[in-house]
């Protein structure tokens, strides 16, 4: 009796491991081939020497990191540091603007009648179905010199005559905000939809003014959505290539452009790899900080990032 149950159990174990193998293996292989291997390769390249045609060569060296930090043949230049700071600043500003714009939109959609809500969400999402490059070209046409928007900015005195609103850092911010808005609206909408309106009334009933009812009863409950949205917006924005390339011009370059240039134009693979690693590290630091903030403000609720 005992033996049969043992045999049964071991057979179940075999079946289970076989099941695991078939279900997990394809994904694991995929991740290994297309994520782990290239990342490891990138890491390796970053620590190699740049050859005459920009390709990585032995021996190993920290040369590309030195160059990334700004030390070149002509001594130290702040160009790359500016690019890093500009990337961080653009990410910060555009994410903050996206939050400010998306928050009321998401709230407004939840107050609409139930049958209208999917349509409103669709209106928010549909533009992102168009190719990003095409949409960015659209902004170029809207912001170029001589367009009504540029004319308006001129007449208010924001820009010099015939300058146009692009290329500029402002155009990049605008492009980033426009591009990433749906990624903030959706998680915030999900958070708002879960919220029971009776709780807002309960807060007011418990002596909270409308403003305090918002801060103490509504805002903390939308925080998981807000943080999820921030991750969805800030990380891709930090590494954005297309928008600064098209709208930024020479003075609007971000880290993504710096890296891309090393693999394409100026051909310096190890430097590009080092840049990519820098981006990765900055991203992880940002994620870690966000988790900490989420745990502190989330009132014990696990904020999944």
């Amino acid at each position: 009796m005992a033996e049969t149950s043992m045999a049964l159990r071991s057979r179940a174990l075999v079946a289970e491991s076989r099941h695991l193998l078939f279900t997990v293996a394809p994904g694991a292989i995929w991740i290994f081939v297309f994520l782990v291997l290239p990342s490891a390769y990138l890491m390796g390249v970053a620590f190699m020497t740049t050859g005459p045609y920009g390709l990585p060569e032995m021996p190993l060296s920290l040369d590309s990191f030195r160059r990334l930090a700004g030390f070149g043949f002509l001594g130290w230049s702040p160009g790359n540091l500016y690019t890093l700071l500009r990337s961080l600043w653009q990410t910060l500003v555009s994410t903050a603007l996206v939050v400010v714009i998306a928050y009321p939109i998401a709230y407004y959609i939840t107050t609409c009648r139930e049958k209208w809500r999917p349509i409103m969400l669709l209106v928010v999402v549909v533009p992102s179905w168009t190719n990003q490059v095409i949409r960015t070209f659209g902004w170029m046409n809207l912001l170029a010199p001589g367009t009504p928007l540029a004319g308006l900015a001129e007449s208010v005195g924001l820009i010099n005559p015939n300058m146009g609103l692009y290329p500029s850092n402002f155009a990049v911010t605008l492009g980033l905000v426009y591009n990433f808005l749906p990624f903030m609206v959706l998680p915030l909408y999900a958070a708002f939809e879960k919220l029971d309106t009776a709780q807002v009334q309960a807060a007011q009933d418990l002596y909270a003014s409308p403003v305090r009812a918002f801060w103490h009863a509504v805002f903390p409950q939308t925080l998981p959505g807000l943080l999820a949205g921030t991750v969805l917006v800030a990380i891709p924005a930090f590494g954005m290539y297309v928008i600064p390339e098209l709208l930024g011009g020479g003075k609007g370059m971000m880290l993504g452009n710096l890296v891309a240039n090393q693999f394409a134009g100026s051909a310096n693979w190890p430097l590009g790899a080092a840049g990519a690693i820098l981006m990765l590290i900055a991203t992880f630091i940002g994620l870690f900080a966000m988790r900490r903030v989420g745990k502190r403000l989330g009132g014990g609720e696990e904020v999944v990032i």
Partner: protein
Amino acid sequence: MTPSTMAPDTGTREPGTAQARDIDRRDVRQASSIDLRGLHKRFGKTTIALDGVDLTIEAGEFFTLLGPSGCGKTTLLRILAGLEEPDAGSLRIGDRDITDTPPHKRSVNTVFQSYALFPHLSVRDNLAFGLRMQGIPLEQRKAKVAEIADFIQLGDLVERRVDRLSGGQRQRIALARALICEPNVLLLDEPLSALDAGLRGQLQVELQRIQKRLGMTFVFVTHDQDEAMVMSDRIAVLDSGIIQQVGTPSEVYEHPVNAFVARFMGHDNLFAIQRSADNWVDTDLGRLQLDPAQQRSEQQGWLLIRPETLELGGDVPAGYNRLEGIVKERLYRGSRIEYRLEVNGVTLMAVASNLGQRLHAVDDRVTISVCPEDLVRVAA
């Protein structure tokens, strides 16, 4: 709540004990009367929620708003809380006119039907929310939370998150969260409707005890007439935005003013009055003698016969009405027996306490004694 009024009730109240002193201090506290005048409220263009409500609720009273869904009882409660604005009319609590006071400036707290606890806060922070919004310092908040947790017997729950609690526990916390603010008036919006029958009965008794001990004015909304009768000092029955009757449970149950109230209180035996004089009425049952002392001015309307006042079988006492009927159906309910009788071709319900007497069988012919004093005329 002062610490002594918050002490758990340990038993009988004797003069000179802490309990008796509680009562003295309680009287100093600020239970408030409520005065509603000419309240109107409509939603959209067609839905009339309140159609001219005048009502006075005494300080320290357990007052129930009773009615079917859509009768306006919840709207009335929400107007008291300030969550809804009346289109017309005025509203006073104590000697203050609060018609235009926003909810967060009213000394009124609500126990919501869905409880509306804050899921992002622990039980402790839920309880302390009202105190925190009033700017009460942390030390006092802690003391009060400990007090209320003890009072409502949820001591070991305070650290938990609210979404890990049972329905009954949430209900208690919703109640405690409102009570901790020591409002002049506590509003309860069907707070027991989500609970199962056993727990509900238990909490009905408990709520009533808490109200009596604190001497606070409670305004309770329900659609359950049994619940209303068990708990209330007075009941207002509402229908279509109009108060139909206000009275003690026995007044509303035994002397409903109209057919709606009678039906809503669970009465089946209503018979249209065809003709009437001072001391008799003609209905489908035949002519019945009435107690002239109970005359009402209206001559038309309905005759109410409470099933529990009928006596089946045996001799008909002198001065009683005598009816003959056939048992059509018998429902054995344990403590009582319900009979569906047919008298002159109409159905009459009778309820007898199960005292061990011989039961009447289906198809039995029985004599029915009806005391004239138990017959009540009800307006249409």
